[in-house]
């Protein structure tokens, strides 16, 4: 009985030392955790600014592209009119050269449309930035909770990764590895009868 009591005191003693060490470790880490948690909103703000900057830049390139597209369309119309007049006046060579210019304008038009569609990168960037900002917000909330509660252990549900941040991280990871290309999507659509 006395031996068992002695062993119990030893166990309680080592448990108390472990708790004390853990408390000290958490105490010494708290300033860094606090510092990280206060920096996270700044990081999120930078990301949001980045999204806004890409949006502004993209819209300006679009505006200018549309202006060039409109002026090309007007030029093509004018050239057609002049070519018709030249043909009527039997100036076939000149009309042919104007036709070549019109073809070149058409090619430029295709390139301008490619510039427009390439700008869709901004949408993809914005979607990823939004997810990152959500993740940062949630991480910051958790860090603050950690400091307030003063315990680093996660409960079972959190460990399973069910928070919004975990879901978004998974989505970001998935998009890197399993995202479909249009051809794969088309093959899959064909299996559903889309011809």
């Amino acid at each position: 009985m006395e031996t068992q009591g002695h062993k119990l005191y030893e166990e309680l003693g080592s448990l108390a030392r472990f708790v004390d060490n853990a408390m000290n470790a958490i105490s010494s880490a708290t300033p860094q955790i606090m510092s990280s948690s206060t920096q996270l909103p700044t990081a999120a703000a930078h990301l949001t600014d980045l999204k806004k900057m890409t949006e502004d830049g993209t819209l300006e390139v679009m505006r200018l592209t549309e202006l060039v597209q409109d002026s090309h369309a007007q030029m093509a119309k004018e050239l057609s009119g002049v070519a018709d007049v030249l043909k009527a006046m039997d100036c076939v060579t000149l009309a042919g050269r104007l036709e070549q210019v019109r073809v070149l304008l058409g090619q430029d038009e295709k390139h301008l449309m490619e510039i427009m569609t390439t700008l869709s990168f901004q949408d993809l960037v914005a979607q990823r930035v939004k997810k990152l900002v959500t993740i940062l917000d949630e991480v910051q909330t958790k860090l603050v909770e950690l400091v307030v509660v003063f315990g680093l252990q996660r409960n079972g549900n959190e460990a399973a990764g069910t928070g919004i941040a975990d879901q978004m991280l998974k989505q970001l990871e998935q998009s890197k590895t399993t995202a479909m290309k249009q051809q794969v999507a088309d093959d899959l659509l064909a299996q559903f009868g889309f011809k």
Partner: protein
Amino acid sequence: MPADPNMKILVVDDMVTMRKIVKNILKQLGFSNIDEAENGQEGLQKLRDGSYNFVVSDWNMPVMTGIDMLRAIRADEKLKSIPVLMVTAEAQQSNLIEAVQAGVSNYIVKPFTAETMQEKIGKIFK
């Protein structure tokens, strides 16, 4: 039946840049009667208020997602026959299957080209 260049098209996307891109492509493809909405709920409201012939929609949007709007369209007696083209960055196979089950008319993965959109519209209105 080829696509009518005068048909009324609704472009639904929360990103102004994407709405402009899709509108620009549709314009270059000869369509001029184009309206826009910022999310599924606004899109659905516009569809119920007006007579639209075609919807081009994003998936991931606040308030109401594109897939929820698609389901609402297919469940609405007046709207259910409107073709819906999904243009989205949601590029998982499960997303495409979900869209097909919800009644999507075709599906474009971002980033995409004008040719892809032309081809898909051609298939929807052939």
